C-alpha cells in the first residue's frame, strides 16, 4: 500500500500561470507525509488538489492523474462532496464556526443526515477525544467555539474534520499560527492519529517535518525536487537544492 495516494504528472495552471509541474508522488496508508519548501513553491496548492478545494477558485486547470485508494479524484463521475467528506482538511488559521463547540462537531454529521441526538452526542465525544480536547471542554460544550484559545480552536477544527470519519486528513500549515506549546500538542496528536488516518501535511517548519513525518517531499517552483523517507531526506539528500534548503542556505 505504498501508493495509497498516487499522483502522476500533475500540472496545475492559474489562468496561464503554471503553479505545479509534472508532479509525481506517492504516499503510503497510515503514514504521515510532509510537504516542505519555500513559500509559493506549490505545496499548499498541491494539498488542495487532494480534496479538490481548488475547484472553488475560478480559472484553475488541472491535468494529470490523482488517485486515493485506487479511485481517481478527477474522474468524470467523481462525487466531489463525498470525496471531500472522505478527505478531511485542517487549515492554517483555526476556523471554528461561530457556533457552540457541540454544534461545530455535529455540523458535518448533521449535513450527512445524522439526526439522532444520542448518535450525535456519541460522535461529538468520540471526535473530541480523538483530538485530545474532550477533557478540556466536556463541561462547556454549549460555549462558543470562538471562546477557546488558539491551540484549542485548532484541535476543535481537527475534531470537526474527524467527525465525518475521513480516511485521509490534510493539514495545511496547521500550526503556523500557534504558540510552541500548542504546536507541540498538535504534533503529538498527529502522531496518535496516524494509527487511524493517512495524513498529508504542509509545513513551513522543517524541524516539524523532521520530527513528525514518515516521508518528506521537497518542493521548489512547483516541482517536486526530492521525495524520500524523512530520515533519508534530511540526512542524505540527493539533490543539491534540497541540501541547500534544509541546511538553511535559502528559503
Amino acid at each position, binding site marked *: 500500500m505504498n501508493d495509497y495516494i498516487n499522483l502522476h504528472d500533475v500540472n496545475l495552471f492559474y489562468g496561464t500561470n503554471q503553479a505545479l509541474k509534472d508532479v509525481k508522488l506517492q504516499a503510503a496508508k497510515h503514514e504521515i507525509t510532509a510537504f516542505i519548501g519555500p513559500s509559493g513553491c506549490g505545496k499548499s496548492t498541491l494539498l488542495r488538489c487532494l480534496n479538490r478545494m481548488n475547484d472553488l477558485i475560478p480559472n484553475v486547470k488541472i491535468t494529470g492523474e490523482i488517485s486515493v485508494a485506487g479511485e481517481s479524484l478527477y474522474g468524470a463521475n467523481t*462525487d466531489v*462532496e*463525498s470525496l471531500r*467528506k472522505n478527505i478531511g482538511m485542517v487549515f492554517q488559521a483555526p476556523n471554528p464556526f461561530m457556533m457552540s463547540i457541540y454544534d461545530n462537531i455535529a455540523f458535518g*454529521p448533521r*449535513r*450527512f*443526515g*445524522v439526526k439522532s441526538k444520542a*448518535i450525535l452526542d*456519541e*460522535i461529538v465525544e468520540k471526535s473530541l477525544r480523538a483530538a485530545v480536547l474532550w477533557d478540556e471542554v466536556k463541561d462547556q460544550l454549549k460555549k462558543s467555539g470562538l471562546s477557546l484559545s488558539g491551540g484549542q480552536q485548532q484541535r476543535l477544527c481537527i475534531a470537526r474534520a474527524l*467527525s*465525518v*470519519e475521513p*480516511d485521509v486528513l490534510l493539514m495545511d500549515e496547521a500550526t503556523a499560527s500557534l504558540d510552541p506549546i500548542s504546536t507541540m500538542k498538535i504534533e503529538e496528536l498527529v502522531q496518535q492519529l496516524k494509527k487511524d488516518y493517512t495524513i498529508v501535511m504542509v509545513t513551513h517548519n522543517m524541524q516539524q517535518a523532521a520530527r513528525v513525518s514518515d516521508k518528506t517531499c521537497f518542493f521548489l517552483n512547483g516541482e517536486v525536487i526530492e521525495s524520500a523517507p524523512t530520515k533519508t531526506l534530511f540526512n542524505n539528500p540527493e539533490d543539491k537544492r534540497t541540501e541547500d534548503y534544509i541546511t538553511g542556505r535559502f528559503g
Partner: protein
Amino acid sequence: MQNLKDFKASKLAKIFNQFFMVSMWVLGIITVFFVLLLLFLILKDGLPYVTWDFVIGLPSEIDAGGGIGPMLLNSFYVTILSLLVSIPISLGAGIYLAEYAPDNKLTSTIRVCVEGLSSVPSIVFGLIGIALFVEYFQIGLTIIGASLSLAMLNLPLLTRVSEESIRAVPHSYREGSYALGATKLQTIFKVVIPVAMRGLITGLSLVAGRAFGESAVIILAGGVNASAEMWDFSLFSPGGTLAVHLWYVQSEAIVPDAKEIAHKSAAVLLFVVLAINLLFRIPLWWMERKMK
C-alpha cells in the same frame, strides 16, 4: 452506532443544491432585466416626445400643450440652494467626526444624532417646513422654505459621505504634511480634502440626485405650484418642483393632455437624475486620467 465512514453525500442534497443554483441565477437575471426594463419604459414613453418648448414652456391648467419650465427651473434652484446651505455644515460635521472627534460621550451623541437624523422620514421634514415657514414666519409655500427644509434632509447623508471619504484618506498623507510643519487646518485643506475629493464628489452626486427628485418635503414646504413666469429667481415664489409636478398632473390636473405631460415629465426627471449621477463623475474620470 452508524458508521459514518460509508456515508455518501445524499442525492437529495445535491438535487437541492442544483435547484437552488438555478433559481438564484433566474432570480438574479430577472431582477436585472426587470430594472433595466423599467428604466427603459420610462425613458421610451417620454423622452422622444420632449421638445424644447416643453422643457422651458409654462404649464397650463386648462389647455393642452403646457410645459414644465418653471418647475424644472425650481428643481435645479431648490436643489442648488439646499446644497449651498447643507454643504458647509455637513462638510464641517464630517471633518469634525473624521479628524477631530475624541472618543467621548459627545462624539457618540453626535454619531447617534447623524444616524437618527438620517432615519427621519422625509415627510417629517415637510411638516417641520410647514410649521416653520408657513406658520411661524408666515411666508407661505416658497422656494426658500422648500430649500431649507430640503437642506435638513440632506444633512445626515452628506455628513456621512464626507466623514467616510475623509476617513478613507491614508494616515501617511497627513503625517507627510505635519512633518513639513503644516498646521492641521493647512493639512486638511491642502492634503486631505484634495485626496478625499473623489469620494466627496460621488457622495455629493448621490445627495444632489436625491434632492432633485425629492417630492414629499417639497409638496409640504414648497407647494404644488411654481411661478407663473419663466426665469423667476425670487426666493419667495412658489416652490413646486418637477417631481411634485409629476404627481400633480398625474393625480389632480384636469388638462386634457395630462397623461402625455406626466410621461414626458417622468422621462425628464429620470434623465436629469441619472445625468446628475453620471455627470458629477466625469470631471473625476478626467482628473484621474490626467494624473495617470
